[in-house]
C-alpha cells in the first residue's frame, strides 16, 4: 500500500510517496540520496544508520518511512551549513577518530542527539549514547578520545552557566 507522507529533512520540507514496508533508511538513501546514514546490519544492532528524528537519535532501519510522517529529520548531511562542521565532527577530526568511515556518521549522530537532548550531558551520558555503536577498525580508542574532549567542553559550559 502506498502512502503520501510529508516530512522535513535537513530543514527542507518534502512530500513523498512511500510503500508501507519501506524503512525510513531506504527512503533516505535511495529516494533522497542521502547516503550518510549507512545500512550495516539492518536490524538495529550496529548503529550505522543513526539519524535524528524530532531531535532524538534513532535507528533509521527500525523506523518505517510512514512513521516519519510529520517528523523533523536530520541526517549527517544536514548537521551544519555547507562548508561548516559541528563540534562533534571537529572533535572526531582532531582525535583522528575515523578510519574507514562507515560507522562514523552513526557515532556522530548519536553524540549530537544526546548533546541536543541534554546540554549538560556528562561523560557517562555520552558513553551511554554510544553503547549500541560498532566500529570494526579504530579500536574505539580515538573515538573515546573525541568523546572525552566533548565531555570536557560540556563540563566547562555547565560550570560557566552555573556561575
Amino acid at each position, binding site marked *: *500500500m502506498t*502512502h503520501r507522507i510529508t516530512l522535513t529533512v535537513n530543514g527542507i520540507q518534502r512530500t513523498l510517496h512511500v*510503500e*508501507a*514496508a519501506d*524503512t525510513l533508511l531506504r527512503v533516505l538513501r535511495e529516494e533522497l540520496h542521502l547516503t550518510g546514514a549507512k545500512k550495516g546490519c*539492518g*536490524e*538495529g*544492532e550496529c*548503529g550505522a544508520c*543513526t539519524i535524528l528524528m524530532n531531535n*532524538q*537519535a*534513532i*535507528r533509521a*532501519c*527500525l*523506523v*518505517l518511512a*510512514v*512513521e516519519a510522517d510529520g517528523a523533523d529529520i536530520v541526517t549527517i548531511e544536514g548537521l551544519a551549513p555547507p562548508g561548516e562542521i559541528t563540534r562533534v565532527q571537529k572533535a572526531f577530526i582532531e582525535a583522528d577518530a575515523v578510519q574507514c568511515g562507515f560507522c562514523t556518521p552513526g557515532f556522530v549522530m*548519536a553524540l549530537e*542527539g*544526546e548533546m541536543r537532548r541534554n546540554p549538560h550531558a556528562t561523560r557517562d551520558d555520552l558513553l*551511554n*549514547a*554510544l*553503547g*549500541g*555503536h560498532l566500529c570494526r577498525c579504530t579500536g574505539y580508542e580515538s573515538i573515546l578520545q573525541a568523546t572525552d574532549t566533548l565531555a570536557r567542553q560540556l563540563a566547562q559550559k555547565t560550570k560557566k552557566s552555573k556561575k
Partner: protein
Amino acid sequence: MNLEYCKPQTLEDLLAETRAGTHLMAGGTDLLVDMRSRKKTVQRIVDIKAIPELRGIRETKSGLEIGACETFTALRESPLVAAWSPALRECADVMGCHEIRHRATLGGNICNSSPGCESGVVLSVHEAQVRIASTRGVRLVPFDTFATGVNRTCLEPDEVVLSIILPKAADSLSFYRRITRTAGMDLACWNGAALVLQPRTPAKRVVRISFGTVMPAPYRPRAAEALLSRRPLTPADMDQAYDLIIREIAPRAGSVRASPAEKKRAIRNFLDELLERLAP
C-alpha cells in the same frame, strides 16, 4: 509484499481496527526485526503511537500507572519510576541501547514476551496488573498470567494493552540484574529481579524474586520465596533456596543466550546479593 499500515488517532478507532491478522506497532524495534528476518509474516500494521490513553506515567489510587506507549527513555528519566521501582529504573537503564530506548516501549516489551524480556521479571515481582481494552470492555490481568510463554501472551486478537500498573510497595527495596555478553548492547542472556517488602523487619519481610530465560516466561520460585520471607536470613538459607530453585527450573541447553550452568551461577550470585542487601 503488500503491507497495509494505518495509524488511528483515537482509542475508539484503534479498538475498531484491532482484529485477527493485525500486528500492533508501538516502537517497532522488535516487529521490524522480525519482519526482516521473516520470523513473522506481517500483512497489516496498526500504529498505536497516536493514542493519548496509551501515554503517561502517573500515580493513581491503585498504584503507578504506566501507559503502554511510554518509552524506555521515559521510564529511565521518570522520577516517579525511580521512586516507585529502582528495579524498573535499572532495567530501563540497560535495555537495548540508547537509540532503541528512545523508541521501544514498555507495552511492546511485554507483548513481544521474549523469555529474557527485560521488564518481565520486574513486573512479575511487583505483581503488576496489565490493563487491557477491546470493544468488549476493559479488563485487568495480573502480569504473571499475561505472559504465557515464548512470544505468547493471553491477549485476544482484538485486545490492546492500555497500561501497566505497579501496585503500591511503600516500604520496599528492589533491584534488577542481568548477564550479557557485551556491556554496550545485548539481549539479556539471563535476568532477575527482587522486590522485598518491609526489608528492615525480618519478621514481616516478604521476599519476591523472578528470573528470566530459565522458563518460557518470567518465573517466580514460590517455594524459595516462602523460605526467604518473614525471618532473618543466613547463608545456609540461600543454599537451601538455591536448591529449591534449581529443582524447578528448566533452562534449555543450546539456547542463543547462555548455558544452563551460566544461568544457575547467575542465580547463585543473585541470591548472595539479596542476602547482602538484607544484612542487618
